[in-house]
Structure formats: structure tokens, C-alpha cells
């Protein structure tokens, strides 16, 4: 088991390292940040002087070496715009993003599992067709559009909910619903199909024959087994929700990591982008790492492989 854990941890390190490396070179393709920060009347010599102070005039490999050397120590430098520690700035935004991700996940699970189960159980019924239809729409609807529709209806027309910002659970409702829509659709379809597989199993027929009620049949025998693959999906989606809430955070003025990264990219505030990429890659890799460990713990076959 220890071997397995060490191997997987090494993979986490490699994933984070590769993510940082790729992004480091990619964002440098977007150009030099110095010109964006200085006032327009800055002379060329002065721009050069700033580039030298900030180290942007050195060869790329040197900059990369220094960056990695410091990153290992947890130092991602200071924001070019605010002179504050980049990692701290990103970590300050983390709670808001986690909050949004978890709220979305809860909404997604609470809606998707009952609907998926019911749709499978009543296969080909009106409800089933309706549920499948709605999930297709949910999966196809871009979040920026859905978000704006929700704002328009609930905030502008009805005046029931705030249109954006953060602070109270009420503020959380619209953004998490918007973010959850895609996951709801995915989870519902997945629950439905795994449930259908399970319902075809012999042991279900046996349970049915031995007189189990519909409710206990589904909840006690079928759901348990059909949930295992869903847990993988949840783990994967949690990673995506944590890193991919950029659009929702922008529309709802949610002060999370996605929005900070987006703005920092446009401002070419490289240290913040790198610190943000580090946090997201790390969380994503760790969630998968934990999922792997839990699996291995539950199912020894995986360890052996």
C-alpha cells in the first residue's frame, strides 16, 4: 500500500510540475507585461529599466530556472500590479471558489440522483423522456447565457435575489445553480444509465422475487451499487468546478480564483497566474490522488495492478 501511495504522490508532483512548465512558457508567448503597467508617456529606456528590475529581459530559461527554484520553496513572487505576495492573493480567493464548487456539487447531487434513479426505474415513461430532454438542454446551455437569464428573471424582473456579489447564502444561490446545471445533466444521465445496468442484474431479480418493495429494491440494493462509478465522476467534476468557474465568477461578480486568474491574464500579471495555476493543478491532482487511494483501499485489486 505504501508503495502505491508513494507512486501516486510522485504522479501528483509530476502533474503540477508539468502544468507549471507549460503555462510558464505559454503566458510568455502572450507578450511582455511591463508595457501594460507603465504609463503611456514612459520612454523606451525607462521601459527597459523596469524590465531589468523585474527580470523580464533575461533569457527565458534563466527566468524559468529562477521561477522553479523559488516555486519549490513556495515563493511565486509578488504581483506586478500590487506588489503583494502572489500565492497569498490566490489563497485569499480560494474559500469563495471552494464554497461555490461545493454548493454546486450539493445542488447537482440532490437533483441528479433522485431524477436519474426515477428515470431509470420508469424507463421510457413520460418522466424519463422529459428528464433526458431537460438534461440535454442543460448540458448544451452555455453558462454565461443561463447565468444572464437567471439574473434577468430573479434579480431584475422579480427582485427576489441579488444579481451578483457574495456574502450571504442568498448570494450563493444563482451562481451555484448556474454552475451546477452542467453537472446536474451529467450526473442525471450517468445515474440513469448505471442504474439501468444494475436493474438488469440477477440479484435484483432475486430480490424482487423474494418480495422486496419497490422502494427498498431501489434504495437498498440497486442504488448502492450504481453509485460507485458516480463517485469517480463527482471527484472529477469537483476538480473541474474548482478550476473552471471563470465564466460564472465573472458574470456573478463572485470573488474567486477564476475571476482573479482571468483578470491577471488580461493584465499579464504573471506571478498571480502562476500561483493560481499551481493551486488549481495541485487541488485537481490531489483530488484524483485521494480518489485513487480510497479506491485502492476499497478494492485491493487496483493496488495489485
Amino acid at each position, binding site marked *: 500500500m505504501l508503495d502505491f501511495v508513494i507512486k501516486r504522490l510522485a504522479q501528483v508532483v509530476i502533474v503540477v510540475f508539468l502544468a507549471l512548465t507549460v503555462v510558464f512558457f505559454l503566458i510568455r508567448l502572450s507578450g511582455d507585461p511591463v508595457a501594460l503597467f507603465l*504609463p*503611456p508617456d514612459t520612454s523606451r529606456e525607462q521601459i527597459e529599466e523596469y524590465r531589468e528590475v523585474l527580470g523580464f529581459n533575461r533569457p527565458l530559461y534563466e527566468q524559468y530556472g529562477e521561477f522553479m527554484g523559488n516555486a519549490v520553496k513556495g515563493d511565486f513572487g509578488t504581483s506586478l500590479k500590487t*506588489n503583494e505576495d502572489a500565492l497569498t492573493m490566490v489563497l485569499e480567493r480560494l474559500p469563495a471558489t471552494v464554497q461555490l464548487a461545493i454548493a454546486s456539487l*450539493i445542488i447537482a447531487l440532490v437533483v441528479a440522483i433522485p431524477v436519474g434513479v426515477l428515470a431509470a426505474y420508469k424507463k421510457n415513461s413520460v418522466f424519463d423522456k422529459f428528464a433526458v430532454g431537460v438534461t440535454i438542454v442543460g448540458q448544451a446551455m452555455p453558462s454565461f447565457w443561463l447565468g*444572464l437569464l437567471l439574473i434577468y428573471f430573479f434579480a431584475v424582473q422579480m427582485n427576489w435575489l441579488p444579481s451578483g*456579489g*457574495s456574502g450571504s447564502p442568498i448570494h*450563493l444561490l444563482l451562481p451555484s445553480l448556474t454552475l451546477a446545471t452542467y453537472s446536474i445533466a451529467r450526473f442525471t444521465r450517468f445515474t440513469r444509465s448505471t442504474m439501468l445496468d444494475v436493474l438488469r442484474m440477477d440479484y435484483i431479480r432475486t430480490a424482487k422475487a423474494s418480495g422486496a418493495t419497490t422502494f427498498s429494491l431501489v434504495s437498498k440494493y440497486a442504488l448502492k451499487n450504481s453509485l460507485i462509478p458516480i463517485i469517480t465522476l463527482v471527484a472529477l467534476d469537483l476538480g473541474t468546478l474548482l478550476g473552471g468557474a471563470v465564466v460564472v465568477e465573472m458574470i456573478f461578480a463572485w*470573488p474567486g480564483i477564476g475571476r482573479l486568474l482571468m483578470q491577471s491574464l488580461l493584465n499579464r500579471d504573471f506571478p498571480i497566474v502562476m500561483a493560481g495555476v499551481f493551486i488549481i493543478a495541485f487541488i485537481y491532482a490531489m483530488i484524483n490522488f485521494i480518489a485513487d487511494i480510497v479506491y485502492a483501499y476499497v478494492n485491493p485489486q487496483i493496488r495489485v495492478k
Partner: protein
Amino acid sequence: MKKLAVLLVLMVMALVGCTKGTSESGGDTAPQGESKDKVIIGFEADAGTLMANTDVNYATDAQIRNIYDPLIGRDADTGEYIPVLAESWASVDEHTWRIKLKDNVKFHNDKMFNAEAVKFSIDYMLDEKNNSFYRSRWENIKEVKVLSDTEVEITTKEPFPGLIERITVDLLIMEPSYVKEVGNEEAGKKPIGTGAYKFEEWSRDNYLKLVAFDDYWQGAPKIKAIEFRYIPEFSSRLSTFLSGEIDLFKNVPVDSVEKVKAGDNAKIEEVASSRINYLALNTFYDGPLQDVKVRQAINYAVNVDELLESVLNGHGTKMTGPLSQLNMNYTETKDYGYNEEKAVALLKEAGYKPEDIILTLDTPSGRYPMDVQIAQGIAAQLQRVGIKVDVKVNEWGTHLEKIRNREMGDMYILGWGPAFEPQSTVVDLFTKEAPYSGFYDEAVQAKIFKTVETFDDDERREGYNELQHTLVEQASWVPLWQQADLYAVKKDLNFKPRVDEEISAFYMSWK
């Protein structure tokens, strides 16, 4: 099943835990029936820092000017200098300026404002350690001397007639003992100034809350609290305004003006900004644009009135020369006007068939009002006289970098401002080192340098007059317009937009 339930409960608990962390003070959700002594302003971006004299950035400046005062400000309508913390100023000789300061002005921490604070604030910008992006503009300063509590003397390395402009645009006064005590980072998070509003709370990317400073030297503000709320997306900002959650926001796109006006309790306030938009004609490469006749032809071929009417719905003020009317030393120059025949004739005179001329036109996307549509409109207009134009749309950072690195093609759309004083416009646009207009002429440059260093007011005015006429004669660019600053404002809020774009809550009140 039980495990799932436990998992859900755990997640809800985690969520509540997170909520606590970020919800010490939520944005106010009750849009109606609130007591009317607070104003909530929607803003597209957070301040970079709340430290004065550091971040060259409109979003930062507009917010912190409620906390800090400048020495010299501007008249809200004309843009002329007015004393704020300064009482008066005068140049002693070409290298020396003396500024008399107001007495009896208090900082938010009860310390008194004095000449020491002025020296400290300028020295702060000049100190490399502080990484101020203003430093490059102030490098001409040799020394700031405290003559008495209410008088400072600034000496410069070279003659610096533009110093007063720099003081007006850049300099805000910080409290020295506070900054020294808590350090730059802390002072940048919890600022102290002499302004009408005291810092209360700042939640990054979320909001900035300020409360009235009742000991303010101009009297206690009528609005007792202000909040800047950051809403990056325009559609969301508009929705938030229409639902009544914010009272005011700047930069309504021209195509959304009617939508705002349709709101129950909404009005549009508009003022001609000192920010100008223009079409630069690049003369740095061999090609038709080096020929003054071709540039003049383009000036005749671009129909500015048509663009203003059909693309900007009339929200903009036409310009004919290099400076807007808000500039000191502005003079009226010749208007080329729209004239297709003249354009064609001039091209012929220059020895070109219009169809032989193929030009590129670069535009940023979303930086200026309807910039991409304007570029396409200009391309269509030039095509009418036969010039082929290839429009290229750039992300703003790329656009600016291309200009700064002189990698720009033939023509590009750019804005300039806020500009109240001609020096920075002519020096930074029409000299060899300056990349922003793409125009350079040796004689014009010599005239520019001579004029900006002239200390005598009349002589300088004469110089600028001549320059403006020459630049128009040379068709150095195609002047377009002053942008319109469009604000969405609640009907019962007294708010008058200022030409300098400051959003000063001190001058606001509820009806």
C-alpha cells in the same frame, strides 16, 4: 446510502464554514427602502492597491481620490486647475517651484497635514524600492524642500513647465507617520488620507466600503457612506443597476443607453471626456502614408460625422485637430470635412491609383466605445474612394505592445487621455521616440521641444497654436472625437459627471 448522507452533511458543514470566512459583511441585498445616506457605485474593476502614488490605473485612481486629496485639482466643467490642499503655486525660476499649502487640514488619524507630507509623498514615488509606476514621470525632480509647515519648494533637473500638470494628475497626499509605522503593504490595504471619506473595509474583487470623514476640511459630506462594488461583466452590471442594487455606474456602452433610460428610476448623465480617439497614420515605414497628400486624402475620405451618428449614436464630440477643447492652449483648426472628390484628386496628385493602395487597420476590441465597429466603418469609407483596407482586431495588451514595439501596420485606432495639457499629447504622440501616433517630422519635433520648454505663457501659447495648425496641415493623423463619458444614475441621485472622470461622492446627494 448512509455514507452518501454523511458526505452531504459534511459538505454542507464545509460550506457553512466557508461562508463564515467570507461573509463578515455582505453586500446589502435590500435594494429598496434603504436609508438614503449611502451610495453604491458599480465598478468594472477592483483597485490594484489602495496606496496612493503607486498604480497608474483609472480604476484605482477614481476610488482612492475619495480617500486622498491632491494638492491641485480640476474644475469639474472646464478642467482648469483649482487649488485643493495647495493654496497657491508659482515658479521662482526655470528650475524651482514654490507651493503654499492649506493650514488646518486633518488626516483621518487626526494628524495634521503639512509640507512634510508633501515631501514624503513625492519622495515615495521617486524611491525605487516602492515600485511606483509613476516614478518614470517624476524623474526630473531633483529635490523637495520643506520651507515651513505650509510651504514646499520643488527643484527640477531640467526646466519642467509641466510640473503642475504632473502634480494634478499624479500626486495624492499620504500620511507619513502612518505609512512609516505600518509599512507599505499594510498602508496599501488600510489607507489614511485627508479625503472626504475614511477607509472602512475592502474585500478584494468584492467591494470597497468608505464612511464619511466628518472632520473633512471642506465640511462633513452629505453622503455618509459609499461602496464601490466590483462587477466585471457589463451585462451583469446593467442588471444589477436595473434591479436597484447599485445607484451609479460609469461607461454605459452607447448601444445600451436606451436600455438604461427605460429603467423605472434611471437616467443617463453624459459629459464630453478629455479622452480622445483617433486614427493613427504610420509614417515610419516606406509607403504611401509617408506622402502628405495621401494622408490628407484619407482625412477627406473618413466621414467622422457619419461614424459619430451611425455607430456612436451621437455620443461623442467631433475633433478637428490634435487637441480637444478641454486642453489649455487649444485653438480651432481647419476641419477637413468629408469630400470624396478631393480625396480621389489628392491621391492622383500624389501619383497613386486608389486601387493600388492597400492598407492595414489595427483596432483593439472593447477598449474604446465601439472600436471594432468604428474600424470597420472607416474601412468601408476608405473603400468608397477605392483604398482597400484590411481590418485586424487585437486583444488590448497585444495592440498596445505592437504599438510600443513599433510593430504596427499602416493605420491603427487608439485613444489618448485624460488630456488637459498639450505637452504630454504633443510630446508623446508626435516625436520620434513616441510610438503612439506613428507620425514624425523633424521640423515639427524641433518646434515641439522648443514650445514645451518655453516658460513664458504667451510665447508658449503661440507655439502651441502654430503646432496645432501644422499638425493638421501635415495630416499627421485623422482626429476622430472626444469620447462621451456615459453614466447610468438613479433618478433621485444628484450626480454631475466631471470632465476629469473623478467619481467624487463628496459632491453627490440624494434628492
